[in-house]
């Protein structure tokens, strides 16, 4: 976790800070390309995991209902918190 998450993020912040005066860097294309690779490899992990694919039909409904509720309440609670502390 430290090596593949914290190190690249902190390195990016440090280097970005030193180069902040140069305004000509456009990394939009790199980002899109890397996002496509990331999502492709996520899909690949799903497709190559037979256990996961097999358990989907059995517990699919319960799982979808629980995810929907967890997401719903997460959004509502966060909205309420932001209203209370005035965070925009």
């Amino acid at each position, binding site marked *: 976790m430290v090596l*593949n*998450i914290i190190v*690249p*993020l*902190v*390195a990016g*912040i*440090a*280097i*970005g*800070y030193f*180069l*902040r005066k140069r305004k000509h*860097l456009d*990394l939009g294309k*790199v*980002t899109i390309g*890397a*996002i*496509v*690779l*990331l*999502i*492709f*490899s*996520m*899909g*690949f*992990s*799903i*497709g*190559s*995991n*037979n256990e*996961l*694919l097999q*358990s*989907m039909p059995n*517990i699919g409904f*319960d*799982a*979808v*209902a*629980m*995810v*929907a*509720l*967890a*997401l*719903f*309440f*997460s*959004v*509502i*609670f*966060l*909205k309420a*918190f932001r209203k209370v*502390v005035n*965070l925009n």
Partner: protein
Amino acid sequence: MIKYILVTLGFGTLAGYLNNNYAKVIDNNWVSSYLFDFSLILLLFVMGFMFAADEKAVAKLKKAGLKILGVPFSIALGSIMGGLVGGLLLGINVVGSMAVTAGFGWYTLAGPLVGQLFGANFGALGFVVNFLRELLTIVTIPLTAKIDNYTPVALGGATTMDTTLPVIVRYCGSETLITAFSSGFILSIVAPFTITAIAGIPK
């Protein structure tokens, strides 16, 4: 963009399925670990870079200050509430269903840990529920980012420190980097403790 995300995901899933079950063209690990890590590391670096180079984003973070630390706790409470209501509606053990949603989207943790504490059925549910959370978050970011910058962060739970972070930042802007990362980071740290603590509630 949501179209591209879904098509890429579908194409990846099909490729993974075919490769695993029919033609062993490449080792599964090569894509699931190496390509995944490579793209994630590259993205995190680029996102960090763009954040630090964006003076407006840094200023905005300074203004929000310590308030952003309340964000993950609201998301944690909301997630557990979802598990509670879900358990009641579906007629399954409420303590177990709260432990499942307390994975906050971290399925590689929630699957085994909930399984160990509540048995294999809950383990499978813990895995799939949290896996779907990550999946739904990432495919809906182009839509939820239109509501506001915090909605994708709320949906992503613990995943906003890694897999969903680059996509959130791409759609919500650099100013969301620290909010999303710190929220995902805190939720990832508290998830194992929360699941274990919930398991201590008498059933």
